[in-house]
């Protein structure tokens, strides 16, 4: 800081973006030291929405913590649930029926599409274009209706249980999901024409907000951020959990490292997720959706393990320590947004305010996920 302080032009000033600011999508505060419109230093200040989920994980039983998972990254809540039940299942050595795994994959991928759609809309709002948001919400609405029909909620899902899922899907869901896949595919050209080919949008994204692959590695940025920087890191391929190893899909990678690359990764991921949903619906086996004999009060043996899933924003990881009792001894929740935001300070130096906010938008932050 001291060497920066000397370099600061004598007319620099401090600009507080947030905690209430239209560009930060929540209670994130960024303390900007500006030289005119150029950023000298950007210090994110987080913790406004801190709820100490990790402590809550320690002072209640494993099952009672399940609803908490939906309240971290609420835009893609199913992934948090998947990460948590995955860790506990690994700890307790539970085997999940195949039908349940397929249902998990289908609902998670639908959730990923919903999350990416919301991001496309919100990112365009960051750039000053309001209209695409409503189209994205229109499509997202179909997904939420579908997921609501099996999970019972529209945002903070609590659907996965240790050893399976709490509701089986019915024919209506399967038909609805197939219809959605078809209708979403037919909508993709419209998004392409409306957003991807928009000249102002491209000017605002191409070459803006460069994040090198090495920066991503050193800061632990995952998900579309690192894939937009040319690294094909995807937990679904690297450490195939659930039934991802039985499904055929590509990991979109772009090497431009700019906002446009991150946008394209997410748009391609929507297409890939549609493929996954379609395949999984086709392969959906019959059978139970809950493992037999899962005790009501789960007491995993002593030890610890790590389980991570590819959430819509990156690698969501859970490290669980068990001491053999009904409660977890320690529950570490690794949120992708936390690491993705941590590189903002270094990478936004010297950028224009406008471009830095485009970069911030392209990271796809959900603030309660950072604050936990």
């Amino acid at each position, binding site marked *: 800081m001291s060497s920066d302080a000397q370099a600061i032009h004598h007319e620099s000033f401090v600009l507080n973006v947030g905690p209430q600011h239209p560009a930060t999508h929540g209670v994130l505060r960024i303390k900007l030291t500006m030289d005119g419109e150029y950023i000298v230093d950007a210090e994110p200040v987080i*913790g406004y929405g801190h709820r100490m989920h990790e402590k809550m994980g320690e002072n209640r039983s494993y099952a009672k913590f399940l609803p908490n998972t939906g309240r971290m990254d609420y835009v893609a809540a199913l992934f948090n649930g998947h990460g948590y039940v995955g860790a506990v299942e690994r700890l307790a050595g539970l085997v999940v029926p195949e039908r349940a795994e397929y249902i998990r994959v289908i609902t998670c991928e639908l959730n990923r599409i919903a999350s990416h759609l919301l991001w496309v809309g919100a990112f365009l709002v960051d750039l000053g274009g309001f209209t695409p948001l409503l189209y994205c919400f229109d499509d997202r609405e179909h997904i939420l209706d579908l997921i609501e029909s099996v999970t019972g909620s529209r945002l903070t899902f609590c659907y996965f249980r240790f050893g399976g899922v709490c509701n089986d899907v019915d024919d209506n869901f399967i038909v609805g999901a197939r219809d959605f896949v078809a209708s979403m595919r037919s909508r993709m050209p419209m998004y392409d024409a409306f957003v991807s080919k928009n000249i102002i949008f491209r000017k605002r994204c191409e070459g803006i907000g460069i994040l090198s*692959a090495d920066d991503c590695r050193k800061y632990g940025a995952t998900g579309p951020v690192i894939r937009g920087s040319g690294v094909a890191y995807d937990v679904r391929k690297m450490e195939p959990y659930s039934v991802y190893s039985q499904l055929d899909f590509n990991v979109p990678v772009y090497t431009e490292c700019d906002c446009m690359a991150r946008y394209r990764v997410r748009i391609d991921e929507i297409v890939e997720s549609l493929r996954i949903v379609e395949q999984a619906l086709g392969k959906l086996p019959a059978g139970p959706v809950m493992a037999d004999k899962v005790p009501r009060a789960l007491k995993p043996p002593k030890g610890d393990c790590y389980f991570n899933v590819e959430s819509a924003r990156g690698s969501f990881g859970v490290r669980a320590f068990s001491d053999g009792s009904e409660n977890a001894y320690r529950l570490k929740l690794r949120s992708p947004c936390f690491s993705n935001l941590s590189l903002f300070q270094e990478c936004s130096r010297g950028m224009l305010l406008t471009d830095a906010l485009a970069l911030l938008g392209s990271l796809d932050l959900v603030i309660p996920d950072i604050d936990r």
Partner: protein
Amino acid sequence: MESAMPVKDLKASFEAIAQRDAVSQSLVAETDHAAKGTNLDVTVPAERVGDAARILDLAAYMIEAITGVDWLADKQMEIVYDFVHPVSGERVTVRARVPRDKPELPSISAVFPGANWHERETHDFFGIVFEGHPGLIPLLLPEDATFHPLRKDFAP
């Protein structure tokens, strides 16, 4: 980014640390990914985490998380570092233990700048001091917080 260093080579590097110190608390074990979620589980003396981080940095590993665990009964705190290789997907977990009454160990934020926030968070929750950290101020807790909520003897 260069491809992954095989787990075996990494294992040798970590064992070298252990031998240099001739400290018995070093432990390097390959683990079953399906059971533990990690490929290599390394325990190093607390003052050697910087060396461990440098080995992983040279092997182009990515930092995933840092966290602490309060072992009240053992009068120790454990610090767990999770690393993953972004190309091969191999995982390495590095552990270190510090005495509970003097929880201090070196910071690795000079090697992995991303560790900065994780260490601040761990300091918030456990009061573990990372020596050489550029600014160990509360990240998630209030600015004036003097408590460490994840310590097992914490009473609100």
